[in-house]
Every structure is written in C-alpha cells, then in structure tokens.
C-alpha cells in the first residue's frame, strides 16, 4: 500500500456505449465499464458472445467513440485532440477478429509495411520492421515476396498479426486471435503471444471466450457480462468463484470442474487451480494427506 503507484498505461473510466442511438435498433453494448492496465500486464477479457468485448476494445484506440465516459492513455484523454488519434493507434495495436480478411496488398511484405508506411517511417526502417515482424510471428523471410492470398489460414493470420506488430505498439490488443484455428494452430498462436509478452515486454490485452486459454496465459482476468465487468482479478481469484460464474452462464476450466466434482463427492482436494499441471500437484498433495504417504 505504500510507495507511489505509477499512472496506468491505459485507463477506462465510466465507459458506456449505445449502438444506433435514436433508431428502433438502439442497443446498449457497454454499461459503465472501468478498468486500468499497468505496463507489462497480460490481461484476458472473457465473456459470452455479445457481452461487449469487441465493443470495449474498439474504444481503446478510438475506433469507437464512447457514448459517455473516457479512455486515458498515459493519463491523457485520447479523444481530446482528434488529430492525435491516428498517432495513438500506432501505439495501441489492435488486431481484429478474423484479421486475415484485412489483407489487401500484392505481397506479404507490402501488406505488413502498410502500418509503418502510414506512420511515415523511412524505407530502410520499414524494411527492418517488416523483417523483424516476420521473425516475431515465426514466418520465414522468404514469405515476404508471396501473395497473401496463396497462404494457408493460419499463415494469413500471422501475417495480419505481423502487420500490427510492425508498428511496434506499446500495447497489443487481440480480439479472439485463435478463433477458427485448428488445435495445433491455436497452440502456436498462444506460444507466439506469450513470447511477445515475455520476451518483448509488450503489454497485452487478449479477448477470448475460452476459460482454459485465459487461465493459461493471463495474469489478470476481466469477466464481462451483458456490457458490464462482472468479475475481475487473478485467475485463482476468479475461478474460485465457480458458482458465480456458472450463474452468469460461464464455466470454469475443465480441470477445475473435475476437482469441484471430486470435492462434491467428499474428496478433500484443494480446488483453487485451473491448469492440468496444478491439478496434478493438488491431487498428489491430497493423496498424501488422506493416505498419509
């Protein structure tokens, strides 16, 4: 509690958003959302389809304007000067859901260069960043000369990610980056995102609707429900409230479910865990306790 708390890198205050105001299709998608992100955090935003996750993250770089409320980047309201909005978008990189559909250039290299070119960088710097971004997403340099339309789905998605990384944003916001990938592709994508956080020190906000995925990688979870933040905290804290989650129509990770079921049958296992490795530890500890060996 003592010591100076640094200003959060990104802060959302009292954010509400209503779509199609004044038409019969009016819809409140966000309702008084508050959150703050510190430098170096890895946050997962979880929630059902339609809970407002995508709406929320499109406010973070000013693509959507709040109906009420504020978004602060380094303590500055991003909407204060509209002329600065574009610059802010280079610092808060946002990767949309199914980003492969945004590819448009003749070659992969040119497509990745689109962001840096919009930043007005020199050609030599752009080339450096393109090759760096390809490295970061684990694609060979030779792919830069290919057409993005001849790549596989997983490759296209990495190219799209590289296109955002090439802007070297301070914060990376990813909207369901593993949606529609096969299990191997998901695994690779997760490895990649984890590396971006661990090795490149990027602050990451990851939107997902998979509890397992969120539990595995994030240091903090934000659970959304009907446009509001329903629960927030470290994974252990959030998944400790299994009943509240289930009432909200969300589930805890499969392993946690198994442990909860075991406990319900009278086995005194500690259920505060959410990965398979942890579960093994807890079960072993439990066996020791019960059998005394």
């Amino acid at each position: 509690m003592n010591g100076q708390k640094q200003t959060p890198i990104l802060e959302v205050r009292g954010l509400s958003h209503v779509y199609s105001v004044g038409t019969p299709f009016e819809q409140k998608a966000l309702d008084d959302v508050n959150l703050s992100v510190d430098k170096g955090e890895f946050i997962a935003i979880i929630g059902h389809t339609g809970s407002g996750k995508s709406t929320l993250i499109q406010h973070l770089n000013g693509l959507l304007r709040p109906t009420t409320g504020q978004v602060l980047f380094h303590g500055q309201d991003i909407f204060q000067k509209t002329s600065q909005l574009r610059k802010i978008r280079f610092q808060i990189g946002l990767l949309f859901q199914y980003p492969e559909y945004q590819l448009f250039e003749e070659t992969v290299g040119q497509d990745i260069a689109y962001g840096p070119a919009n930043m007005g960088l020199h050609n030599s710097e752009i080339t450096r960043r393109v090759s760096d971004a390809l490295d970061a997403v684990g694609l060979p340099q030779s792919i830069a000369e290919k057409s993005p339309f001849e790549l596989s789905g997983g490759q296209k998605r990495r190219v799209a990610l590289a296109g955002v990384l090439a802007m070297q944003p301070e914060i990376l916001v990813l909207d369901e980056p593993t949606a529609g990938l096969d299990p191997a592709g998901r695994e690779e994508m997760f490895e990649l995102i984890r590396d971006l956080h661990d090795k490149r020190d990027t602050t990451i906000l990851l939107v997902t609707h998979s509890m397992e995925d969120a539990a595995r990688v994030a240091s903090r979870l934000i659970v959304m429900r009907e446009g509001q933040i329903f629960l927030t905290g470290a994974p252990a804290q959030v998944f400790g409230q299994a009943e509240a989650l289930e009432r909200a129509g969300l589930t805890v990770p499969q392993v946690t479910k198994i442990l909860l079921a075991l406990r319900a049958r009278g086995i005194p296992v500690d259920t505060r865990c959410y990965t398979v490795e942890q579960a093994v530890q807890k079960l072993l500890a439990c066996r020791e306790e019960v059998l005394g060996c």
Partner: protein
Amino acid sequence: MLRDITLGQFFPGNTWMHRIDPRTKIVLVMAMIVALFVCSHAAAYVVLTVYIFGLIAISKLSLRMVLRGLKPLLVIILFTAVLNLFLTPGDMLLWRAGPVSITMEGIQKAALIVARLVLLIAGTSLLTYTTSPIQLTDGLERLLSPLKKLHLPIHELAMMMSLALRFIPTLVEETDKIMSAQRARGADFDSGNLLHRAKALIPILVPLFVSSFRRADELATAMECRLYRGDIGRTRMRQLQLGRDDAICVIVAILFLGGAIVLQILT
C-alpha cells in the same frame, strides 16, 4: 456510421400495415405516385398529406425516422425548390432583381415541388419500412408473373434481387469492419486530395471484393446442395393471400386517392 443509412430499410414490427399483403402495398404505392403527379391543387394535397401521414401513424413509425430518410435528398429538394422559386415567369410579380424574380406562381410551384417530393419519399419509405425485402420481392414476382408467359426470367430476376437485398446489410457490416481494421493500422480516409482519398480506398475495396466473390461462391454451392434449379416445380413456404385487411386498405386508398383526384378535377 455507414449503418445509419435508413432510406429503404426495413423496420421489423407487427402492425396492421406490416401484415398487409406486399402486392397490395406495391399497387397502392404506385397509385399514390400517380395521384401525387396528377394533383397540383392545395385542397387535393391536403387530402394526400392526411392520407400518407395517417398511414405512417398507423404503422407506428416514428416521424423522426421517416424524416431522417429525407436527409440524403434534402439538397435536391431545396435546389429544385429554389430554382422554381426564382425562375418561374408569371403575372403577379412580387420582387425582381435583374434576371431573377419572385412571382406568386413561383411560390406556388416551389411549394408544390417540395410537398410532392416529401410526400413521395415519405409514402414510398412507408412501403420499404414495413415490408421485408423478401416479402417485397415475393410480391413483385407474383405481380409480374404474367410476364413469364413471354419467357421473361421473372423468377430469376426476383431471386437475384432478393439475394442482393439480403446481402446489403452484410456488405455494409463488412465494410465497416474492414475500415476499422485498416484504421487501426493508421489508414486515413478523410484527408488529402482526391487522388489520395481514392488511393486510400484500395485497402477496403480489395478485401471487400475478395470476400464478396468467396461468399457468392459459397452461396451458389449451398443453393445447389439444396437442389435449387430455378422456377420449375418450385413451391413456396409463404403463400401470399389477400384478405379482409387488404380489402379495407384498398377501399381507404380509393376514398383518399380518388377523393384527391376528384378535388383536383373539380377545382
């Protein structure tokens, strides 16, 4: 936002007007257009205004919504009104400056043009606001089906039209999404000269074309998988049926539209 375009959009509802057979509505809208162009007297226009805005009230459409549909055409309406106001020659001169003048006839003509266009748009949007695109094309197909005897591909045209209408919202949504995605990479669509702006559209148009072709291909496959083979032997899920409400609707229309035309002829 792109999504906020309302002219020609359907608003789901369950009012009396929503349940009227689309054929009735199409025919009556055409009758209304004829009446609007036949009439020019103030008395006739009062009757037509009561008729059209009465129907809007029955359909529970908000007046704001209907008037918002006028917005894209506001410039045209004002432009023609101003032209008529200043350039109509006439006997009752009220004001003149060089070649332009305002006459009583000019004022009347300008007022008529504004009233005619506003009622025209309000009346036709009444049709599109209360009739789903599917119903609309169904109705058109049935109305035009006598032309099938002349070997005109009415069914195919109607099918194409309903598919096109069906995909407009999808396309708008997709455009919105792609624009946002490119904006997130620093795209700037609103500044620079014309050439610059045209170039800025490439990152939107290419992905849009690619996905449209992919979607068309998938749709064709899906239709073939369900054995679609055109009009021959095809039955309908929704049978159109004229009922008592349609009769009432027609009688009301005859009273008002006929009344307006009679007034026009008498005065």
